[in-house]
């Protein structure tokens, strides 16, 4: 079997796999936010930046190829990733103490993983519209990191095309493909993958906040670096304390 080398360890890959696919299958953590196995790669968050034979590439979009020598878990790359995470925090309104996703949020967990203490850059404090029109879903654009996981899940898995990104530059924001632009007038239902795939607190299921006790939330129990996290359902289910 062919293999690539990540931080000195040989990692096998099958033809057609990206560096990210191969790493995930082998249990090697490459930080990522906009990637989920089974959905086409996007390459927008840039957290998965690795050095392949001395050149910076996105692990989620770069095909694995025999003989690649990859640097991943290095202090320099993790410092760059921390800066990227800080940019994502200050571009939105990430007020975790009042967010229903806190403890279950991948962006926050990446912040912890990278030892992020502060946002470093001046806050944007954007004013983006909250869409609470849907009976069972709410969209808080303040927390959207524009990873397009919902866009891709809706298009590729649900076959619905409910979401898109509109606008340009810092004015980019998530839009809903319905006549009114409101979630209530789209076809989305809570059975859709798009309703559950958001890695942050931007798309939430109504009436299911704060159900899991602190200490038992996803990232209280797991580190984001556990690559099996793709298997952990991030939707809230009631935990019954013994």
């Amino acid at each position, binding site marked *: 079997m062919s293999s690539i080398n990540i931080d000195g360890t040989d990692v096998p890959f099958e033809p057609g796999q990206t560096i990210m696919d191969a790493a995930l299958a082998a249990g090697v953590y490459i930080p990522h936010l906009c990637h989920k196995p089974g959905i086409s790669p996007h390459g927008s968050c840039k957290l998965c930046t690795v050095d392949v034979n001395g050149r910076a590439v996105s692990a989620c979009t770069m095909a694995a190829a025999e003989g690649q020598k990859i640097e991943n878990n290095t202090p320099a790359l993790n410092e760059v990733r921390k800066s990227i995470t800080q940019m994502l*925090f*200050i571009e939105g*309104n*990430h*007020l*975790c*103490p*009042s*967010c229903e996703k*806190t*403890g279950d949020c991948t962006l*926050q967990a990446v*912040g*912890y993983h990278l*030892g992020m*203490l*502060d*946002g*470093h850059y*001046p*806050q944007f*404090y954007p*004013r983006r519209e909250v869409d609470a029109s849907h009976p069972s879903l709410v969209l808080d654009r*303040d927390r959207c990191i524009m990873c397009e996981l919902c866009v891709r899940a809706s298009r590729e898995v649900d076959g619905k095309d409910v979401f898109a990104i509109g606008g340009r530059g810092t004015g980019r924001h998530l839009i809903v493909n319905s006549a009114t632009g409101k979630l209530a007038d789209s076809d989305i239902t809570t059975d859709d993958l798009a309703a559950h795939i958001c890695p942050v607190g931007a798309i939430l299921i109504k009436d299911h906040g704060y159900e899991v006790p602190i200490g038992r939330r996803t990232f209280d129990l797991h580190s984001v670096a556990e690559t099996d996290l793709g298997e952990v359902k991030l939707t809230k289910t009631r935990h019954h304390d013994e």
Partner: protein
Amino acid sequence: MSKVRVATTSLAGCFGCHMSFLDMDERIVGLLEHVEFSRSPINDIKHCEPCDIGLVEGALCNADNVHVLREFRENCKILIAVGACAINGGVPAMRNHFSLQECLEEAFLDEIGVDNPHIPNDVEIPLLLSKVHPLHEVVKVDYYLPGCPPPADAFVKILTDLLEGREPALPKNMLHYD
């Protein structure tokens, strides 16, 4: 050996970070062998004297907050932004979604049960800033202690590190933003 001087204050804070500081419980007795407090809500000192460490909770929401923060920066060798509000504005920064005028009108004119509706305008009252801001947008911050509030153990850890001349560091389990 002379004691290390520590000042603390709450700007647009909820005093929760101070309560979490006091959650170190009896460990504060040991701390007081090495530390004496300058201006702090737990004593009567009115102004920050020259200090080694300043702990500041809360964001900046009015002119007095900015004034006090500058006084702390001028007097403290090490300034620590404590808690979510000091670090990114925190929950009070949710008002940045609205104009200041909208907030004042809602609170003092339109809110149910307001009698004698008027927006307070006495010169004694510090003017609100148009937006809530984190500390580092106005002064240089030396260290950040995240959490809403940070755990008591994190206060103990960061102060012990500084008292013993180490670069302060938090174990991962004390790092949280909520």
